[in-house]
Structures are given as structure tokens and as C-alpha cells.
């Protein structure tokens, strides 16, 4: 029984459908696994065992009664703690939300519940999704299942580690500048940032509204497609949600084929700063795709050189405003001033002083400055212009090629603490993922193999907006070819964790 945790979600779904296992058994197995390995990994901030088992029992009963169920019904899932869950604590990795139990569900959570996916718990993350290592969590870092001295990526390190450590077959992440794709890359999992507006943001605690996007973190390309189809689609509560229906994602993942496709290698995303081992795995993967009939084309996107700069103005600007509501007035923690009068303003200040961590404060200050009178045009305004240029670069590139490809992250997982005191070095880790967020286009990261240090590297595929199916079409082919080489999923090669 214990090996149900090693299966992909699609395999689990099949076994559940055939009645080989029950959802209660599957859910319990994952809860047991969490109990065994999470003390070392710390992927979870909250484990919702009772709720998960109740959902599992309900699905089993409905299945036994012959009710038609969603393909993923009964497959448990972990949800990043930035996603609001009714009656399940939600903190966004921050002390300022310590003890907050939301009175409502995010739209994507409603869809998970309706489809009967037991929610195992809430995963660790950098505070308010600010960071690339999960070290900025107010509740302590998550560790990489491949090497516990290393970071699992961020901000969604908890979701990626939960999937890679076999604590959950599926997880939800959010990606503002790479927070799904980079953790997926450094943990050997698959992560997808859908087209902006493709998955409702209603109930996602916002960092930067115009960049945030929720998406799947899984162990296979097909699993991501299954989850993406479930959580995606129009939501009237999110004004920026795309009104048209999603393209056929699962079909694309099952029927992948790259013959005749043109893959553009972005020259700006494969040069200096990329570790040789990461670059080598990327080139090997490209060769496989070329052998499978894809045409490899070099593409230049010159404005990408300014993406990081634009991102680090737009993101904190929006964050400074989005985080203003955390003031100790309506929800979450409230801190009274140590001394002196207790006025609304002083309570807000004391609450924010005590409740926000240093990275959050840094970005609020940056954003407040960038939006302030006299600086708006120079900073926020200029950054928006760069954003438009990046969008044009993508548009021009997609006139020539079907998808763009690059390594997901310049490096494999770095050591815990290595970049904690150097924000700029931390920010540079997102150089390859950020352009997609600025342009709203979809991206996937899947494992390209192990780099020279024995740690996973990621392969990123970017498509035009609303053409998320192309990610799955190309990704599934590459995954199949690589797994033929490896003799199975890359995660099967992950070290067996010491069981507590």
C-alpha cells in the first residue's frame, strides 16, 4: 500500500477509478508520508487531515454509489498557503496572518472541492510569495528533498517539495515571477504558469495583481494538464479572467508531437550566468526534440535584458498597495504599540512592524517610493514601457516560432542561506522566468535531468497567450524522450528520505 505515494496523479486516478484503492487509503498514505518526512522537509504549514479524510470518504461513497466523478476525484492535493481556504488556516507564510481562518474559498479551491480532491494541507512559501528560496517564510524554510541542505526554490518551495518528497501527488502553486517554475526546476518536478487570466485569481492573496497566476505543480506533464483543466476557465469574480474557454490541455498532453514545430531558443536566456551543467542538460534536451522532428531556431528578444529591472519596479509597486490591507483592523494579528497612545495609526504601524518580515518591508518601501509623486514616471511609468517592449518581443518571436525554450533557472538548488543576505543575487535567479509574467504568456518547467552537481535542472517552454496547449504538446514529448533515457521519471532517482 505504501507505494501509492510513488504514483502519478493520472495513475492514481486510474487505480481509484478501477476500485483498486480507495481515496481514503490514498489520502491516509499521503498523510502518513507527511507525518514521516515533513519534520525534515517542512513543506507544510498546516496539515488538514480531518478535512482531507472526510472528502476522501465522501468521494469513495459517491464512487460506490455509481455517481459520475471528475477524473481526479479522490486524488489528494496540497495547496500553497497564499490561496485562501475556508475553515483551513491561511497565512501566506506571514506572521501577520498567524491564526487567520478564512471565511471563504478561493475559486480554484471551490473547483478542487467540487471535483472531490482531498486537501492535504497548506504548503510553505516565502512570505507573501516574496523570494526564490522559501527562506523568507516566517515559519522557517522548506528543505529540498534532493539535498536537505539546499533550498527547494521559491516562493512555492513548499508545494514543489511536497510533490518531490512524495507527500502529495499534486500541488497548487502561484507564479508571479517564476514561483511555480523555478521550484519545479530545482526539485525535479513539473510546474506550469498558465496564461495570465487562465486560472482565477479570486482568493489568491495578491502580491502583484498584474503578474500573479496560480497553476499546477506535479510529477508529470499529463498530471499538470489534468489539474490545469480542472482549476482553469472563466470566473466572473475575477475581472481579468479570460472569458473564452481553455484549449484542450489533456488531449495535448496525451497526443504530443513536435514534428514540424519550430522551437525558438531565446539567446538572452541561455548565455552568461547559466551553470554549465544546467546548460548541458538543456542542450541535450534540445537535441532530443530536434531528433523528434522539431526545428530549432535562435530567437533574439532584446528587451528581456531589462525584464528584471522592470519586474522589480512593477511587482513592489503593486505589492505595496496590495499589502496595505494588512493593518490589524479587520483580520489577522494585531499588535498594540509598546508604549504611548493606542491610536488607529499607531496600531497599524505596530502591527505591520511586527507582522511583516524584512523582505516584505523592503518591497513595500521600494514600491511606495516607485509610485510616489515625482517618481512615478521615472520608475513605474518606465517599467510599464519596458513591459510593453517585452510583450512586443514575444509577439515578434511567436510570429517566427511556435514556442520559446530556455533553461528554467540559471542554477540548480543553492545552499540554504547562500543568498539570503544578498537580495540582488536572489532576484537574479528569476531572470529566465520573469519575462513570461510581464507578458502574461504561459510557461512550463519540466525536469531536463541532473546537472553536474547531481541536482535537478529545469527545461522551460513558453507559448503565446491562450495557447497553453502548446506547452503540453511539446512538454509531453520531451518528458517521454527523457524518461526513455532515464528509465522512468527523474523523481524516482531522488534520494529516499530518512523516515522519522
Amino acid at each position, binding site marked *: 500500500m505504501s507505494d501509492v505515494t510513488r504514483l502519478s496523479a493520472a495513475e492514481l486516478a486510474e487505480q481509484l477509478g478501477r476500485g483498486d484503492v480507495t481515496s481514503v487509503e490514498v489520502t491516509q498514505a499521503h498523510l502518513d508520508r507527511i507525518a514521516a518526512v515533513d519534520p525534515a522537509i517542512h513543506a507544510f504549514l498546516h496539515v488538514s487531515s480531518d478535512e482531507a479524510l472526510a472528502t476522501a470518504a465522501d468521494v469513495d461513497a459517491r464512487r460506490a454509489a455509481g455517481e459520475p466523478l471528475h477524473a481526479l476525484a479522490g486524488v489528494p492535493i496540497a495547496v500553497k498557503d497564499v*490561496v485562501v481556504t475556508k475553515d483551513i488556516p491561511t497565512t501566506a507564510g506571514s506572521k501577520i496572518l498567524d491564526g487567520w481562518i*478564512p471565511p471563504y474559498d478561493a475559486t480554484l479551491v471551490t473547483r478542487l472541492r467540487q471535483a472531490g480532491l482531498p486537501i492535504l494541507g497548506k504548503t510553505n512559501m516565502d512570505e507573501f510569495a516574496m523570494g526564490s528560496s522559501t527562506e523568507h517564510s516566517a515559519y522557517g524554510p522548506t528543505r529540498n528533498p534532493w539535498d536537505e541542505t539546499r533550498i527547494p526554490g521559491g516562493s512555492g518551495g513548499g508545494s514543489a517539495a511536497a510533490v518531490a518528497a512524495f507527500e502529495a501527488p499534486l500541488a497548487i502553486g502561484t507564479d508571479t515571477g517564476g514561483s511555480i517554475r523555478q521550484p519545479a526546476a530545482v526539485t525535479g518536478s513539473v510546474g506550469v504558469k498558465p496564461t495570465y487570466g487562465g486560472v482565477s485569481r479570486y482568493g489568491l492573496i*495578491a502580491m502583484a495583481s498584474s503578474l500573479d497566476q496560480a497553476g499546477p505543480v506535479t510529477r508529470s506533464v499529463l498530471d499538470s494538464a489534468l489539474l490545469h483543466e480542472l482549476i482553469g476557465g472563466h470566473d466572473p469574480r475575477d*475581472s*481579468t479572467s479570460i472569458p473564452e474557454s481553455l484549449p484542450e490541455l489533456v488531449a495535448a498532453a496525451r497526443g504530443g508531437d513536435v514534428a514540424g514545430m519550430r522551437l525558438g531558443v531565446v539567446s538572452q536566456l541561455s548565455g552568461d550566468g547559466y551553470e554549465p551543467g544546467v546548460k548541458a542538460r538543456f542542450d541535450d534536451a534540445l537535441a532530443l526534440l530536434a531528433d523528434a522532428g522539431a526545428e530549432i531556431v535562435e530567437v533574439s528578444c532584446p528587451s528581456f535584458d531589462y525584464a528584471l529591472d522592470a519586474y522589480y519596479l512593477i511587482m513592489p509597486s503593486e505589492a505595496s*498597495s496590495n499589502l*496595505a*490591507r494588512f493593518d490589524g483592523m479587520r483580520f*489577522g494579528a494585531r499588535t498594540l504599540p509598546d508604549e504611548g497612545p493606542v491610536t488607529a495609526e499607531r496600531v497599524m504601524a505596530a502591527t505591520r512592524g511586527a507582522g511583516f518580515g524584512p523582505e516584505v518591508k523592503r518591497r513595500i518601501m521600494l514600491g511606495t517610493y516607485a509610485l510616489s509623486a515625482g517618481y512615478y514616471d521615472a520608475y513605474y511609468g518606465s517599467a510599464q514601457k519596458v513591459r510593453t517592449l517585452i510583450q512586443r518581443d514575444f509577439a515578434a518571436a511567436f510570429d517566427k516560432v511556435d514556442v520559446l525554450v530556455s533553461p528554467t533557472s540559471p542554477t540548480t538548488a543553492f545552499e540554504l542561506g547562500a543568498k539570503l543576505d544578498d537580495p540582488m543575487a536572489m532576484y537574479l535567479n528569476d531572470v529566465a522566468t520573469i519575462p513570461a509574467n510581464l507578458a502574461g504568456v504561459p510557461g512550463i518547467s519540466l525536469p531536463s535531468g541532473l546537472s553536474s552537481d547531481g541536482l535537478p535542472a529545469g527545461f522551460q517552454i513558453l507559448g503565446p497567450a491562450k495557447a497553453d496547449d502548446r506547452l503540453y504538446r511539446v512538454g509531453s514529448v520531451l518528458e517521454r524522450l527523457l524518461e526513455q533515457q532515464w528509465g522512468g521519471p527523474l523523481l524516482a532517482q531522488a534520494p529516499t528520505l530518512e523516515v522519522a
Partner: protein
Amino acid sequence: MTDLVDYDEAIAEFDPVLGIEVHVELGTATKMFDGAPNSFAAEPNSQVTPVSLGLPGALPAVNRRAVEYAIKIGLALNCEIAEYCRFARKNYFYPDNPKNFQTSQYDEPIAYEGHLDVELDDGEVFRVKIERAHMEEDAGKNTHVGGSGRIQGADHSLVDYNRAGVPLVEIVTHPIEGAGSRAPEVARAYVRTLRDIFRTLGVSEARMEQGNVRADVNLSLRADPGAPLGTRTETKNVNSFRSIERAVRYEVSRQAGVLRAGGAVTQETRHFHEDTASTSSGRPKSDADDYRYFPEPDLVPVAPSREWVEELRAALPEPASDRRKRLQAEWGYSDLEMRDVVNADLLEPIEQTVAAGCAPAAARKWWSGELARTAKAKDVEVTELGVGPAHIAELAGLVDAGKLNDALARQVLEGVIAGEGAPSEVMAGRGLEMVSDDGALTAAVDKAMADQPDVVAKIQGGKVQAVGALIGPIMKEMRGKADASKIRELILERAGQ
């Protein structure tokens, strides 16, 4: 404290320039950005959703009806309607502001560059130029408990978020120049005309006393109409027509005093005090308030199609001033009568009463007479008495048919207000119908004439006005249920006159 300058003297010396910002709460079923009900006077914090509470993760979605109302207002103010506009965030911290930013429109309003012709008391028309009308959301409401009820010295404060997210349209004028001594009247008439428009359009109940319509009045003085604009003050939240006029008058006198003494007017917000008709200093308002506006990334732009705008334009109701002129002509009211009706907000019920078959004169008599008096005594709106246009039309019909006289009709109306039913039901229930049986009436007349032969002698002697002395006792005998003119006729007939 500067000395006030007499208003006429101040106006002789300085030229006033007005600027008026009017906020109107739209009467939509739900709030600006979420599905919470938009309703007044509910239990505190009962009309809220995660969106109106600004909970983490909550997102706004624009209320299409609110956009429609904003466009209607823009069209009624002769504005251009934007083909594409956006919301922006106005960032500031305050406990009644759930997200600590207000979602508003900043540099891209839905409507801009219009004008409104305002009719003054003597019929003169003054054109006010409109700079913009934009959409935004209201904030919640703070109540300070303990101390004087103001925030200073309060023990604690309570916040009610029912109003948070209620849709508002803010209408901003260009500087209103050339009003001269009539500036206070122009200010009042402008806000009044706007209020009428909101009601005619059906976009708001527009009740000043409930804060549905709030006006901020900017005023500055300058040496003469050619001079550059002076420093202005902004008197906030003036909420009656009379107060608007008085606030302007006061500021003209006050600022003239400051300037005459060689001082400089401070740019600041000011509060208006009803009891003393004066203003006092609020907070200094420099142009340096930094709201860090930026386009609201949670909302897609608003792009009303031209077809929709033209549909709304075609369906605009008749402008209030045109409607007033038309109705006055139809009803044959004098200017004074019409002004009284308009001032008492009775145009609507009278129109409906006339439509229900009542003569315009009778409709006016009942609404602005008996009903207005009763409403005033009970301290409610005349429309809240439970008497509808159909009731008044029926009542007037009963009078016309000779079934009720005025005194009886007033008693019937009392019954209607008391909830005893429609006029005919009250008449039957209270037994108020006039006696039409000539026998009973003749008997009462005969009795009265027999009782007072001296009066009869006077009448027969030619003093016809003495009839009055007999009518009283006969009416009493008939318990009021007789037609006085018929009694008079009978007496004269029997007295041989």
C-alpha cells in the same frame, strides 16, 4: 479670528470663484465591485462580502449597472463619454477604508467636459461647466464612542462596512466664474438641479439628509474677474441646499475679512456648522497629498460600446427643467404655485395623481396642504404617509361627486393615513358620507329656523349673511355630514329669499 465682512461689501470688493464637487450614491441593488447588497440602515456589518471587507484574496468586479448609471449621469450633464477608461487606486490608510486604497477613477474618468444649465429663482439661466464625472466606491463609516463623539478623546471606535463599496459618482465642475453676488444662489441651484437629475434618471434616491448626495464647496476670492484665481478653501460634506448657500456666503465674508486685513487665505478643508451657519478650519490641504495613484491592476478597462451609449442617450428622460415647464403649462399653476410644489418635492406624486384622474388644482391642494402639514407634524417625508396618488384621486372624486365635503374629506384622509383602507372604505367604515336624503336635511333646517326666529327675521329683512348663524347648528345636527351650500340654499328658499 478674523472679522467677517458684510456680504454685500465683500462682493463689491472681491470676485468669488466657486468649484463644486458632488458625490452621489447610486441606487444599484449591489455594490460597486461585489455582490453585497447596497442597502441603507441595515444592521452594522451585515451587508458585506470578502470584497467589501477587503479580505485577503478578494477581488473586485465592476457592477455593470453602476457603469450604466454613471454614463446616464454623464449624458444628462452633456458630457463626452469615454470610449476607454480605467480605474485607479488611491492609496491611503484609514480604518474605514477596507483595502487601505480606494478604487476610483483618476486621470481617465468615464465622463468629461460637459455643462449644466441651472435656473435661478428669478428664471435666469446660469451655465455651469462640468470638468468630469467619475466612478468610485464609498468607504465604511466610523463611529467614535466615548468622549465628545469625535475621534479626539474617544474611548474606542467602531467601524461599519455596510457602506464600504457602495457605488458613487463624483461630479466636478470647472471653476464657476461670473456668478458675482449670486454665487451662493448658483451653488444651491446647481446642487439642487443635480439632485433633480439624479431622481429623474432614477440612478439614486438622492436624499441629501441620508447622505446620498454630498457636496464639497470650493471657494476663492480675487480682486476682480480678470485677476488670477485666489487661494481656495474646500468646505466638506455640506448636506442641505440651504447649507450650501449659507456656507458660500459665510466663506465669502470670512475670506474677504482675511484679505482685507492683509492676510492670506489658507488652503485647507473646512467644516460647515448648521447651527451657526459658519465654517471652521479642518485639516490643511496642500497639493502634496500623495495618494500614489496607479491603474487598478485587478480590473480590466471599462470600454462602453458606442451602441450602448447611444441607446442610453436615446432613453434619457426629459430634462427636469423642460418637464417642469411642460407640467406647469398643462396644470395651469402659477409660477409661485409651481415653485412651492417643486420645493416640496411634490412634482412626482402630483403628476401621478393627475394621471389617476384628479384635477391638477385638487391634487396640488391635497398634497401641498393637508398631506404636507401632516408629514411635517409627524416629521416624515410626505411620501411616507402611506397615501398614494390613487388615494388622492379617489378622494377628490368623492368630493366632486358630492359624497364628501372638505371637512369630511379631511377626516377620510386621516383614516387613510391611519391605515384604515382606501378613501371609500374609510368613508363607509367611519360613516362619513354626506346625507343626501332631503327629508332629514329639511327637518334639520326647519328645526333650526324654528329655534332662531330672530335670525330668520334678519334674513327676511335682507341680511343674507345671517344665514351663517343657522348653518352651524344644522351642521351640528347633521354631524357634519351635509353640504353647506345646499343648507344655505334651503334656508334662503324657506325664508322666501
